[in-house]
């Protein structure tokens, strides 16, 4: 009992986030009479939100350093437009096109990072300018028109599925197998961490609690892949997302770089006097945001199978909302990648559920706004207690 209490107390933020997500899922599952969790719709939710999740990860880093990026929607649109020109109009090889677009994203991020980090212009201003600049450039590049269609291999990135290697029958067995492999890797790592902790004499979760955690997570992972397997299996974009989440979580928690990024947001002066290259960190975080915005723009363009001038409208707000719902603090230094993903999913399930119910865009906007406010208010009140 003591153990559970402690676990709850130290992870309260994480638990409330997950509970909120689960609550919203259950709510809409009931309200939509079970449509929400059908295989087709679950697949849809992932694909519809993939580009927001990508942005939310980058935005989380930006907010952790105590900054903000309002330009991501425009940057995504701009890069999407450029990808249209490269791949549709010029017929460049897809691989080359993708590389050029990612490099372009890095360049844009570096441009904004330079003004923020080295010239000390508030990021709000720099990226507000960026929002206008790159939206304008999108129009220039597309000359007000829509470019389509993209080559098939480019569209794979965002809208197709890993082929089922054992491909017969109703169920995508390969997907289920991957789920199982993932589960095994997870369980092994959980136990190896525990072994190390015991070796060093650190506190560990009690055995029953650990078992509970393992069983719960294993069930969730496999239920998820089972649902996906009933439709078309694993979308490529999900693999990209999983890789991003694992990669960035590793960087933020386990590397010197990640520690330095948190330190800059926690107290830039103290970080600087501790030998952290604060300017370089901010610069890198903005550059990273540029790359992820480029990726997001390409996924979106691929999904739409078109480069359009309106792409990425209000993406920045969705990304910021996701990060904030996921526990980011605007004073900097606080937030996790995991949180950003949960936050993005909360927004995504809300969108999807309300659409399924036939609620109009007008009310959807208003309700999302209220949820954002409620999430943060809950957090603030909780802290004051």
């Amino acid at each position, binding site marked *: 009992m003591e153990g559970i209490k402690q676990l709850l107390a130290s992870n309260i933020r994480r638990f409330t986030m997950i509970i909120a997500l689960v609550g919203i899922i259950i709510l809409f599952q009931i309200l939509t009479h079970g449509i929400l969790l059908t295989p087709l719709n679950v697949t849809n939710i992932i694909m519809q939100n993939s580009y927001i999740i990508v942005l939310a990860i980058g935005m989380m880093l930006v907010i952790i350093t105590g900054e903000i990026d309002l330009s991501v929607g425009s940057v995504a649109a701009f890069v999407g437009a450029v990808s249209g020109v490269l791949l549709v109009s010029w017929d460049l090889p897809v691989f080359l096109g993708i590389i050029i677009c990612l490099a372009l994203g890095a360049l844009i991020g570096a441009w904004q990072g330079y003004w923020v980090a080295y010239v000390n212009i508030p990021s709000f201003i720099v990226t507000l300018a960026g929002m206008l600049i790159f939206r304008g450039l999108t129009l220039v590049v597309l000359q007000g028109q829509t470019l389509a269609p993209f080559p098939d291999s480019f569209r794979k990135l965002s809208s197709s599925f890993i082929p089922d290697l054992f491909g017969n029958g109703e169920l995508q067995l390969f997907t289920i197998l991957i789920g199982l492999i993932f589960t095994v890797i997870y369980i092994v790592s959980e136990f190896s961490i525990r072994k190390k*902790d015991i070796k*060093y004499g650190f506190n560990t979760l009690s055995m029953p609690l650990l078992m509970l955690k393992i069983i719960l997570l294993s069930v969730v992972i496999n239920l998820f892949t089972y649902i996906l397997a009933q439709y078309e299996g694993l979308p490529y974009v999900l693999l990209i997302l999983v890789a991003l989440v694992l990669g960035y979580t590793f960087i933020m928690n386990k*590397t010197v770089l990640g520690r330095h990024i948190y*330190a800059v947001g926690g*107290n830039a002066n103290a970080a*600087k006097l*501790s*030998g952290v290259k604060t300017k370089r960190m901010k610069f890198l975080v903005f550059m990273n945001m540029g790359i992820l915005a480029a990726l997001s723009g390409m996924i979106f363009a691929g999904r739409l199978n078109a480069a359009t001038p309106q792409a990425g409208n209000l993406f920045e707000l969705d990304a910021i909302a996701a990060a904030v719902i996921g526990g980011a603090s605007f004073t900097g230094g*606080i937030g996790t990648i995991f949180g950003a993903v949960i936050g993005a999913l909360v927004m995504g399930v809300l969108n999807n559920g309300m659409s399924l119910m036939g609620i109009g865009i007008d009310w959807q906007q208003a309700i999302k706004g209220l949820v954002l406010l409620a999430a943060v208010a809950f957090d603030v009140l909780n802290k004051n207690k």
Partner: protein
Amino acid sequence: MSVDSPILEMKSITKRFPGVKALDDVNLNVQQGEIHALIGENGAGKSTLMKVLSGVHAYGTYEGEIIFNGSLCEFKNINESEELGIVIIHQELALIPELSIAENIFLGNEQQKNGVINWSETLVKTIELLKKVGLKVDPEEKIKNIGVGQQQLVEIAKALSKDVRLLILDEPTAALNEEDSENLLNLLVELKEQGMTSILISHKLKELLKVSDSLTVLRDGQTIQTYHLSSQKITESIIIKDMVGRDLTNLYPERKKVIGNEVVFEVKDWSVYHPLDPNKQLLHNVNLKVKKGEIIGIAGLMGAGRTELAMSIFGKSYGKKISGELYKGGQKIKLNDVSEAIKHKIAYVSENRKDYGLILIDSVRKNLTLSNLKKVSNKNILNMNDEIVEAESIKTKMNVKAPSIEQVTNHLSGGNQQKVVLGKWIFTDPDLLILDEPSRGIDIGAKFEIYKIINELAEKGKSIIMISSELPELLGMCDRIYTLCEGKITADVDIDEADQETLMTYMTQSWRS
């Protein structure tokens, strides 16, 4: 003054934080019209007790009773306690740097009519209040442009503007030099003569004994004793014994002096200009050297340029147009940023732990390892296990009082925060350690411990530069003392020839005509 007319009674106060019992059945009686001193080690619970009293920790989050002026108090926030005239000046000053003195004094209590501020009335009243606290500055000057000592007086003026009946000062003199401290204490005595009651928290025993009427000692969250100084004969050593629970005969630990001949670090012709005003030269051709195993001191008045000197050396962290040369172990070195300084095994412990030393939202562990993550990582990937082991070991070595290394540093008492900052720099294993006011806000026991650690480092052959406003501290610890006046070194005094008077003379030897 009769002994049984308490204005304040705090009865059996118990306050718990997750993992800590900060106050355990504490009693405090304060008489009408007295200065009541509160003393105790870092983390003893002094600040917490005052926060309970003023409603920062709301009624219901603690156990026990507070009786003020004969009536039971259940404050839910600061406003409610201020309404009854209980005003607290916190350990960390709460003035807004960009606002003027007058605006700060009447912040939240604006002189207004229908929401429109009456500036002439505000100014007139401010001038009156400033006169009362003996501050001769323009009421429209911005807070950021006046010294800490003056800021402290502004805080008091602000308190006086609120019709205060009980004034609580949490370590008001910690950041002040002797002259400013004197001023402030005299002011308190003056206010007392006009009938004001105050509670004064400080680690400086001498000043407490000088001005207070009663004195309560806290230790580990419990009341040990209350002394009435008018009727009892009390000495410093009695109080120290109450505070730390044992005798502490010598304030400065012994050290085996093993000073080598080899000069480890040398500064030549160091000049620095103000970062915002490139015509204002702050340091003029400073020269100094430190030998292996030597502790040198830098003495100087507020504004002499001590911190500016240290920070400009430490990876050009302060100032513009820096010129001059640095030598380490005979080699000329260039330190363009902090990471280069760390690479050359130089460390700097800032005088301002909250703004420049710690990341307050982070844990003890993360703070301790931040400057030397290399030691707990491999190819830039952290080894958490190593990190925990190292952090635990520094925590034990520095005797940091915290429930665990995962405790957020914001929740540590001031002295323990200081130990974390010092520990963090010792973890970088420096050859040269620059300490800027290392014992500010630290209790006598902890000071002794920190001095011991400094001595050990020196015995191991490390070199130390110590900046301090407390001359006795420099005299007790150093082998040689440089005096700095208006940005210039005015003397290099061997410890055998140094005393307060000599140092003072050089420190005030203005070289500008």
